[in-house]
């Protein structure tokens, strides 16, 4: 099976482990993620101003290109997912804007491309995953961190319940690990503030990690490159600001998937984690 | 008839609760406006049947002005909505009947808007003057 794939900018740079482990694990499932022949930056933030049509052009071009290659597009980055899916949502109603944009572009988009997050794909194809598990994750206690952009606004994204989602926990359970529920799993990690107010991002992520560990998590799992950066790379600063801070490794969901499906360690990208997850994996005989 | 000294004959269908009261207020405030509009008082603008409007045009009215309450203020809940719909439909038909639709005007004037009433009478009279008589020089 071949499915069109849109990596987005960070997947080749800071979020390379997500890209590599995702490709590798999907390959184990017999799914080839076909990167789009032409793709562009999605714009990274969705415009709140309805008459700002310029910022819709990027998503439309991407989706129009994707249409040529298939009717489903896998988008792993939460920010890209949010942007593309919301573009679809408003253009379904606002045919006037769609016409204007189509007029300006070479491509023509008909708002029929489905934007799919890899986790949604996995949960829909449970049996396929189950049949291919080589290493059960042996009850490892994982806090599932959703962040904001996958869940909100609920009506436009329809990803899961925004207050108490469970799709991620279902995936983790499928892989044999034990999901640990912690109340702050849908709260913000600090997001862009890491650029101009890094202390705020450090505080926000610190609270999340502390809450997850406090509820019994041995590691955190996330899907968003920005969240992963804040939660992982800022741990050194968290230690400086809070002496009682205990490190907690942060996985991309695809890294765990890869391990469970028996992918070679090279392709899982564990070296790039600032806080190495190798210890916790060794503890559970997964390395 | 000469357009220069053409004095339009305009019928004003006014609802008693709002527009007619606004006319009263204009009078109490001693506003001045042209005398071309003869007011006819209804309990509610929704009593006005398109046939009355057409009757007016048929019998020489150069213009018909309808005055009712603002949406939400109708003394009888939603009479003005009905009037709005009827006049909208009638406007569409007037061209087919050979009548310039500008000759029929619908205004929402509340009992406090004596000033507005005056203005509307002035404006509408001027407009009908420009349009000319309904017969003779064409519609």
């Amino acid at each position, binding site marked *: 099976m071949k499915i069109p794939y849109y990596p987005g900018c960070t997947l080749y740079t800071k979020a390379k482990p997500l890209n590599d482990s995702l490709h590798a694990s999907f390959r184990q499932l017999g799914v080839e993620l076909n990167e789009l022949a032409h793709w562009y930056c999605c714009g990274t933030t969705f415009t709140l101003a309805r008459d700002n049509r310029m910022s819709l052009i990027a998503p439309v071009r991407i989706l129009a290109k994707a249409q040529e290659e298939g009717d489903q597009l896998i988008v792993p980055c939460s920010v890209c997912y949010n942007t593309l899916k919301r573009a679809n949502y408003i253009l379904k109603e606002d045919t006037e804007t769609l016409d204007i944009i189509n007029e300006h572009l070479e491509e023509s988009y008909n708002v029929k491309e489905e934007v799919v997050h890899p986790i949604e794909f996995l949960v829909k194809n449970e049996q396929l995953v189950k049949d291919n598990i080589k290493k059960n994750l042996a009850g490892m206690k994982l806090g599932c961190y959703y962040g904001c952009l996958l869940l909100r606004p609920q009506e436009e994204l329809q990803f899961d319940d925004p*207050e*108490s989602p469970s799709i991620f926990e279902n995936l983790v359970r499928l892989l044999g690990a034990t999901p640990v529920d912690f*109340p*702050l799993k849908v*709260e913000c990690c600090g997001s862009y503030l890491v650029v101009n107010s890094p202390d705020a991002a450090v505080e926000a992520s610190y609270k999340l990690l502390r*809450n997850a560990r*406090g509820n019994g998590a041995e590691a955190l799992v996330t899907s968003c490159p920005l969240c992963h950066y804040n939660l992982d790379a800022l741990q050194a600063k968290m230690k400086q600001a809070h002496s009682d801070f205990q490190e907690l490794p942060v996985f991309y969901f695809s890294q765990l998937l890869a391990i469970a499906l028996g992918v070679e360690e090279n392709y899982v990208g564990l070296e790039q984690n600032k806080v190495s997850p190798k210890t916790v994996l060794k503890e559970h005989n997964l390395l | 008839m000469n357009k220069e000294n053409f004095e339009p*004959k305009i*019928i004003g269908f006014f609802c*008693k609760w709002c527009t007619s*009261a606004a*006319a*009263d207020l*204009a*009078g*109490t405030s*001693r*506003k*001045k*406006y042209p*005398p071309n509009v*003869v*007011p*006819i*008082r*209804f*309990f*509610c603008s*929704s*009593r*006005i*049947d398109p*046939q*009355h409007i057409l*009757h*007016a045009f048929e*019998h*020489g*009215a150069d213009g018909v002005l309808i005055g009712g309450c603002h949406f939400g203020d109708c*003394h*009888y*809940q*939603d*009479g003005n909505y*009905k009037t709005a719909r*009827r006049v909208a439909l009638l406007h569409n038909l007037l061209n087919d009947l050979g009548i310039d639709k500008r000759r029929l005007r619908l205004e929402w004037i509340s009992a406090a808007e004596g000033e507005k009433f*005056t203005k509307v009478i002035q404006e509408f009279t001027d407009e009908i003057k420009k349009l000319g008589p309904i017969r003779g020089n064409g519609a």
Partner: protein
Amino acid sequence: MKNIGVFICHCGINIAKTVDVEALTEEIKKYPGVAHAENYKYMCSDPGQNIITEAIKKHKLDAIVVSACSPTLHENTFRNTTARGGLNRYVCEMANIREHCSWVHDEKDIATKKAAKIIKSIIEKVKYDEPLDPILVNVTKRSLVVGGGIAGIQAALDIANAGVETILVEKSPSIGGHMIQLSETFPTLDCSQCIMTPKMVEVAQHDKITLLTYSEVEEIAGSVGNFHVKIRQKSPYIDWEKCNGCGECDQVCPVTTNDEFECNLSDRKAIYRPFPQAVPNRYTISKKGHPPCRIACPAGVNAQGYIALIRAGKYKEALALEREANPFASVCGRVCNHPCESDCVRGEVDQPVAIASLKRFAVENGSYEFEQKKPTGEKIAVIGSGPGGLSCAYFLAKQNYQVTVYEAEKIVGGMLVLGIPEFRLPRDSIKQDIDFIKSFGVQIKTGVKVGEHVSLSELQKEYRAVFLATGAYEEMKLNVEGENLEGVLHCIDFLKKVNLSEKVSLGKNVVVIGGGNAAVDAARVAKREGSNVTILYRRSRREMPANSWEVDEAIEEGIKIEFLVAPTKAIGKDKIEKVECIRMELGEPDSSGRRRPIPVKGSEFTVPVDNMILAISQRPKTDWLSSEFERTKWGTLVVDADTLETTVKGVYAGGDLVSGPATIIEAVAAGQKAAETIDAKIRGIKLERKEYATGRPDPEELKSIQKRQRAQMPTLDVSKRKGYDEVELGFDKESAAKEADRCLNCAICCECQQCEEVCEPDAIAHDMNDKILEYDVGALVVATGFDIYEPERLKEYGYGTIPDVVTSLQFERLLSASGPTAGDVKRPSDGTVPKRVVFIQCAGSRDKENHLEYCSKICCMYTAKHALLYKHRVHEGEPIIFYIDVRTAGKGYEEFYNRVTDEGTTYIRGKVSKVYQDNGKIVVMGADTLSGKQVEVEADMVVLAMGIVPTRGSEEFVRRLKIQCDANEWLTEAHPKLRPVESNTAGIFLAGAAQGPKDIPEVVSQASGAASKAIAILTQKEITFEPTIAGVNEDLCSGCSICVGVCPYNARELDKEEMVVKVTESLCQGCGSCSSACPSGAAQQRNLIDIQIEKMVTSALEEK
């Protein structure tokens, strides 16, 4: 042609300055239809009016036009003048030549010309004016107030005090609404009950008020002055005339359920009084119908009832209740196939309640005093002493009939004794039940075979009625070769021999053919007799009809089961040596709904056996009955499905004889049914069967129930199961109590009748029905009140998942001296006193995107009150309030708020985004907008100031009344500023929170306002309405009903018989919408008909 009089007023110089009144008068005099015209300085003055009245007489005028100022000023004046002059007031019209003419134009000739046009158009109108009479409506001097909260109470008292009879309807058992739930009210901190109870008592004792609580308005017809209402008075199942509120019943009721008055902070009994000061002070039973378990039981055994009694430790009463519908409590407690458990709602949560085993527990732990009774009534004969026959005997003997049971065998009990092995059903258990039945005076003659020792016709002569219950125990043949070889046994025969302790010798290898209970029993017996046993069944496990728990026990005991196998022949010389079998596969379903077994060709195999026991099925033996008794094609007896009478008069039948092999409980049910029929027949009364209606919790309610394991029946260790000792050992007291506690009390009241036993005035009436009461009333006041917005919708606040997050109403109950904690503020989770309480204002309100857009008005004040009262109770407590604004717009409110802040409450301006639990503490995550920081507060308790909504269910009620509500379902007032207590429907008034959020002083004011409006109507014999309404010319009306939809007042209705539209004149407000909508001109507004309008237009357009 009319004689019109036109009177032109100078109005001093107001008109005369710019209008030439003299010239005008002359012109008008000449106008067709004008009989007289004159002018005068001040027409409205006394002399002016006299001019008119004189002129009417002198010139024989029949219509009047007064050309003067605006009709808004003097229309009424001149109409009165006209009436004084002897004419109908509605033939008088005014022409406004002042505001519309003289005051707005300068040039005299222009103004005079216009004035002439105006007057002429009015003259044209008046030519067609008809004399009209005001519409008179008789008024029924009675009012209906809907809703018994403070609004309804106040309105009712005001109306009643004005001398008008009032009916006050309230849907709960007591009046009081939400106000009676409050502890103290702001800003005075008056005790709510103290100020309200005197009013409530006043209502109850007022001789002009009829108080109908636990009632709802079901239907309303008619219009102002003459409404006809139907009120449903729900059954409290207690006669309130007799109940004296003593509360003895409350003590003994074994069922608890959520207490709605305490906002689910505590429980109440199924029989209850909402609160101690309830008015009326009577008890009510919450009963939802009958629980599914009872309905599933063929005999209608009150399972919920006896389980509730077991839970309450009342074993004796439980046993007595069990035996009311089924004398075989001991037997069924062990071997019933319990259809009740299949329908048990607990099964939707985790596992069904072990109803049958609990029945057994009551038998083993409930005492019973044997009393030998001697019936004296008519004689009835029963044939067969199995469960069917003995049950029938029992039910009849209870009704004092003398019953004799004829049993062919030497022992009593039928299949119970002969067919069921003792390790499932010990002899003693059977004896216990049979002794119980015999104590009612039932005679049993054993060893008497009817048809042999005595004939049926003899019995028919000797006895008033006969009940046949001879069962079905004739074995069906397998029809295979070798069936008659020695060693091939038939199941029932085999079991009977074993049970009668006759010698049966079995070889080492035994196969049992069949899949029903008999097969499994036979297999387990054969095992105990020392053989290796294999059951061969032709379908799969899923289709096996035997009780699955019996199959489990069989497997536990080492019995093998081979599925999809059937025997084809028994092979051997004289004795069986082998069985040839063939494998089966499942095909399409057969007539029983189970998949048909199809032999797989070429799959035959043989098995060496010493015995083969056939347990396929049984059928009744009916050869001893005459041909008068009709049989079905399966050989069972035909009976009337309702009466159980056979085709022979006076002979009834039931049990396996009629149904084929079935269950014990079905036989008991048949015995019960037949007994009822026989009794009714003999007494000559109408046969009445008890009717059931299912009552159970909604699936939504089940979500919050915690899963619990079903109690495991302790069983004899497998190693000990060699003999016939009972395998199942029965529950101990602790297990039974825990298991009984899992029951969900589906119907709430279970009709266990404990209340009946202690009620001295004999007020309990379980068979009570709802009553429909009808009244004529002249006006209504709707005061249906409010509810709080569902807190579960605010998921981020954790209500329902965090136990110490409560609503404001719940907090009121915690503060109340009569509440669940006697006024001490305690955490619901552990009962400790919270040291820090966080109050969240605007929970659900002022939230346009997700919840209620509006402000609920009362929350700022009551939250301030809550904080203050909490501080008073817990001196070292720390109240913190998160707010957006603090709205204190009332008398004394701002001062109260200042007091609250002075006395130690912290206000933080910002919304709360999340409430969660961390390390046992509740964390409230919010914002402090005044300092620009995020705040996190650890709290012991969180109180949500919930927004308010109109009472749930009231939208439906409002539709019935045909009054409007707005987008938020608050009742709509006729005008938001000037008519706040009137609805759009004449005669229906609004009071209280039903019309919009408001606090108690506003509610009371509004209630009195609504009452005064109602009184204005009700204290008059007749009320009048302006007659300038729209009528219907029935000759022109085609019944198209366009006008009906156009009318905002529902004043028009299509009469389907006459196919014309009829108008309720008192409802028509005279807008004229219908008149312009009517395509045929049938609808016309009086004195503003189409021709009048056209004439007015035409004359206004005429040139001089």
